[in-house]
């Protein structure tokens, strides 16, 4: 972070991006499941320079009681950025942006979790962004779904997420912070790979219909890459020293 130049070439003539990636390449991703002892489920993700920790509690009693639903369990998500997660200190109080991302992630997870099995309960998802570098909502969503699986919440499928976008008139996979600032479009996608369903789709920028189709396709392919890593994180924790 910080050390990168202010004026840079977003995409050179060889199709190499500002951080040395090809157009269809993601940043380096590592996911670890079950990193917190006191939470019911947890996960840690490093998505390029993003570092995000997710903890899950529940299903558990709903407080305040009036929020509970007699038909189904409810999902509560808090996305929060640490004051030190960005270059200039961020006020730790929830900002407009954080409240929105909490809602968006909640709605992206809801189609996957089967909370109707636990009426009158709540599942709490706490997402802490330790370090941010563009694309935190996708990284947070991917980590949250691993953490939910780790907590043993019944799920139809994992939710994998990855962004695609338009930078220097080219559709690229996994937009980083610089490309997000200087690029033309950014499209975060949440995807359930086995059910082949999209649970999150946002678009900031302008795309032609053709570019839009290409962008979704590229993003979904990115999600499939993320999914393999999510799968690995869970298998490593649960079946690590067993044999298959």
């Amino acid at each position, binding site marked *: 972070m910080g050390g990168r130049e202010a004026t840079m070439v977003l995409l050179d003539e060889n199709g190499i991006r500002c951080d040395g990636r090809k157009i269809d390449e993601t940043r380096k991703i590592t996911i670890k499941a079950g990193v917190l002892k006191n939470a*019911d*489920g947890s996960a840690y993700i490093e998505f390029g320079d993003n570092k995000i920790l997710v903890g899950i509690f*529940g*299903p*558990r*009693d709903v407080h305040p009681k009036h929020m509970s639903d*007699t038909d189904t369990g409810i999902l509560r998500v808090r996305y929060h950025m640490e004051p030190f997660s960005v270059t200039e200190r961020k006020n730790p109080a929830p900002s407009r942006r954080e409240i929105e991302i909490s809602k968006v992630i909640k709605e992206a997870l809801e189609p*996957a979790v*089967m909370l109707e*099995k*636990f*009426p*009158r*309960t709540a599942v709490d998802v706490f997402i802490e962004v330790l370090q941010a570098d563009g694309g935190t909502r996708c990284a947070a969503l991917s980590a949250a779904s691993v953490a939910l*699986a*780790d*907590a*043993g*919440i*019944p*799920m*139809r*499928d*994992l939710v994998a997420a990855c962004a695609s976008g338009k930078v220097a008139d080219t559709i690229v996979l996994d937009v980083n912070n610089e490309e997000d600032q200087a690029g033309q479009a950014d499209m975060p996608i949440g995807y*359930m*790979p*086995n*059910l082949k369903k999209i649970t999150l789709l946002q678009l900031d920028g302008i795309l032609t219909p053709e570019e839009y189709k290409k962008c979704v396709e590229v993003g979904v392919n990115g999600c499939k890459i993320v999914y393999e890593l999510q*799968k690995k994180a*869970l*298998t490593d924790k*649960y*079946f690590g*020293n*067993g*044999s*298959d």
Partner: protein
Amino acid sequence: MENKRKYVIPGDLVTTGPFRPEQNVILEGNKIISTSIGISEIYDDSVRVIPLTGKYIPKIDDLVIGKVLSHTSLSWELDINSCYVGFLPAQDVFGRDFSAHADELASKLKTGDLVAARIANFDRTRDPLITISDRDLGKIDSGTLVKISPSKVPRLIGKRGTMIQTIEMATDAAITIGQNGWVVVSCESHEGLLKAKKAIQMVNEKAHVANLTDQVKKMLESKSES
């Protein structure tokens, strides 16, 4: 009996075909998909996944260990390590002729007491109803509480109780296993108690290892020699 066991995570395809989906699987079209991290088992006509993680969900007739949270003048509330609190009505303890002003609930069970109980009734509309009016149920006076993951209780019991018998025989301890993952160990000798606790923790940590009974046996024997 090896019926194609497989490690699965949520979203994984277990099998396709005309099977009855049981625990932790859903039917999507003709595909049977796992909803939990666990081990899939395919029987003649049904499929299920044994979960490796998750909270305890009450089931009718389960034996559980509960801890008294509080009481009103009519009932107790028990922590049963679940997302719901156990409800123990006073009639269950005092009998039919219970009267709220004549009988004092705290005289029988106080906050913090441990209770061996059975889930008498539970459905999705109400909190689980608990009973202690049966043989071997009721207040636990002595012993140590060991908490393990509820999904590992079947492993602690073992095939036809082999695992728990091994531990009980080697340590002379009496072990009560609640399906909710709470286990009460009581033993005459301090050494046996520590050993039994260690064995239970070992099962909790190494539940996925094959031949665990032998490993536990070895651990218990090696300690007794020294």
